[in-house]
């Protein structure tokens, strides 16, 4: 509660977790970052529609509170592994949108120098070991990173983000088991947005809540409303404390929803327009958080507008940076396959 006076602290005693735990400017910054994720996704989508970005992409619009809440208690050198729906995680962990756009445009200034694109976006300097095109591919890697943390005694905590689809992959089960038997500082975050591509969790998964899987691996399984920033951040905070104390892993199920389809080929035939509209109108994570901040007196309309304007400029500048950046030379095609030896 650094920076907050006792009187202010007392006045917040009945507010949700994050309002007691973090300073107002930190919370306003969270709103800024949630908008940044939303507008980044919209900007990427527009660039794709206009033919400026090729390939495909998986947008996380609607899941911003989950990404921000989980990353809130992480230190800069803590690490994450991410998923094919990983743009939000990357921004939440501290990446610059300009270099992300540059990657999507296939430019040398991108985080992966144009070799990875949307599905492999990473920012190793900020602890993001990479999105992953393989469902559950990053989960064992996160456990390995946590093993390094324990062996080298760095104190780092590792978060593995994955979707509901990953909970039926063998890698998920093998990784959770090893993390538990070795008591590793890793947090498994299942962002359950209801559908693995088109197949609902009700049709794909034998348990009602994916968090129940934690019982099989003797770790806490926590369910949070993934669209409420404070709930997510509180669960993450506790899991990080537990991991840093050497008490082992936690499985957090963050129940959320993606407003857009699975990828650019999705015709949304497996869910209704009413369902999508309901989530957008009544459970939008940015609206929910923004309303809370305003109601609790942490921000006013002017402050909100200032954030929106700043984000709009950041996105526009990022796209311009990407457009102006150089494309890789064909002669460099085979670079980075192996480590260049001096």
């Amino acid at each position, binding site marked *: 509660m650094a920076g907050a006076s006792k009187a202010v602290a007392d006045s917040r005693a009945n507010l949700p977790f994050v309002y007691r735990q973090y300073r107002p400017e930190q919370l306003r910054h969270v709103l800024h970052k949630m908008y940044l994720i939303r507008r980044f996704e919209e900007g990427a989508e527009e660039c794709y529609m206009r033919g400026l970005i090729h390939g495909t992409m998986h947008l996380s619009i609607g899941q911003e509170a989950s990404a921000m809440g989980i990353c809130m208690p992480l230190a800069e050198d803590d*690490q994450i*592994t991410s998923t094919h729906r990983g743009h939000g995680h990357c921004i939440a962990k501290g990446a610059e949108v300009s270099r992300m756009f540059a990657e999507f445009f296939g430019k040398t200034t*991108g*985080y*992966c*120098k*144009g*070799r*990875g694109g949307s599905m*492999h976006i*990473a920012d*190793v*300097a900020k602890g993001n*070991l*990479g999105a*992953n*095109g*393989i469902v559950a*591919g990053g*989960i*064992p*890697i*996160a*456990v*390995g*990173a*946590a*093993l*390094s*943390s324990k*062996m*080298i005694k760095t104190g780092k905590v590792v978060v593995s983000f994955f979707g509901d689809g990953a909970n039926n992959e*063998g*890698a998920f*089960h*093998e*990784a959770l*088991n*090893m993390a538990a*038997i070795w008591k590793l500082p890793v947090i498994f975050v299942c962002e359950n947005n209801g559908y693995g591509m088109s197949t609902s969790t009700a049709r794909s998964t034998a348990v009602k809540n994916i968090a129940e899987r934690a019982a099989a691996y003797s770790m806490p399984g926590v369910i949070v409303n993934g669209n409420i920033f404070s709930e997510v951040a509180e669960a993450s905070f506790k899991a990080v404390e537990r991991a840093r104390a050497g008490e082992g892993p936690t499985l957090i199920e963050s129940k959320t929803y993606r407003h857009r389809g699975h990828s650019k080929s999705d015709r949304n035939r497996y869910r209704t327009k009413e369902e999508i509209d309901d989530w957008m109108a009544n459970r939008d994570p940015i609206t929910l958080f923004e309303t809370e901040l305003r109601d609790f007196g942490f921000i006013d309309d002017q402050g909100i507008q200032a954030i929106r304007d700043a984000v709009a400029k950041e996105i526009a500048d990022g796209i311009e940076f990407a457009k102006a950046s150089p494309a890789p030379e064909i002669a460099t095609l085979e*670079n*980075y*396959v*192996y*480590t*260049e*030896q001096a």
Partner: protein
Amino acid sequence: MDAVVRELSYAQAIQEAMAIAMDMDERVFLMGEDIGVYGGAFQVTGDLVERYGTDRVIDTPISELGGAGVAVGAAVTGMRPIFEFQFSDFAALAMEQIVNQAAKMRFMLGGEVSVPVVMRFPAGSGTGAAAQHSQSLEAWLGHVPGLKVIQPATPHDAKGMLLAAVADPDPVMIFEHKLLYKMKGHVPEGHYTVPIGKAEIRREGRDLTIVATSIMVQKALDAAAALEGEGIDIEVVDLRTIRPIDRQTVIDSVKKTSRLLCVYEAVKTLGIGAEVSALVAESEAFDYLDAPIVRLGGAETPIPYNPDLEKATVPQVPDIIAAARDLVKGVR
């Protein structure tokens, strides 16, 4: 004055290399199934757990996919894991982490990470273990850019190439033929490396080049010795590394002998023999050829249980003798 030449078995040579690697670098550790008190299915790790403790000689659950992924994750975050598969066949369970993650991570991330993981695969037939514990799958992994794939054929190379693999910044896959584990040979004391990507001429000759891998190197040498009495002078090239392949040594040898026989245990089609044949056919050595290139590889079948059938599945010394003789005498 000369010290007695020290001999170790291939398995002992690997164990000594792992001990030296752990002594030299605290980031090096071992992971695998039953590699601790059990000593490994083939006693390669032996008593290392007693010397280095359970923190550095880690028994994993029977989780090849997860275990390989943990090794990859540890490698990209500062450690130097050596991951033992109990049998190379179990690579099939872990192909996702080997092929999609370990091999590509550096590339996908634009060079921001390296993946210095070593994976060891006990491979090959001849132990009566039948179809799921006897395969030679090195060509699968040899097909993947980002991996390095080696097949040491002697105790000396088993130690030196493992130490080179541990020092290498990229993922190195080591295929160890199980029948070689008991093979004895000279192994120098202390630390030394044998370079990855460099073939070795095991026997010089004028009439025919045999390019062989792994256990077939010794079989080729036995065949060459047998044909000496017939006046046939065979050069044996031990390929040692199948990715990156040492093209020049093969090309130079064929230019000298004008004939090429490739001998390998893995299934014949779409294997290392095809690659070696093609690299010669595409090179200036093609003009030197006096006979068609011949491949001797494994039969187009899974490895059977019956010992006679099992032997018939892979090239044996008499097969190599016959093929080499026919090639040199112009029967083919």
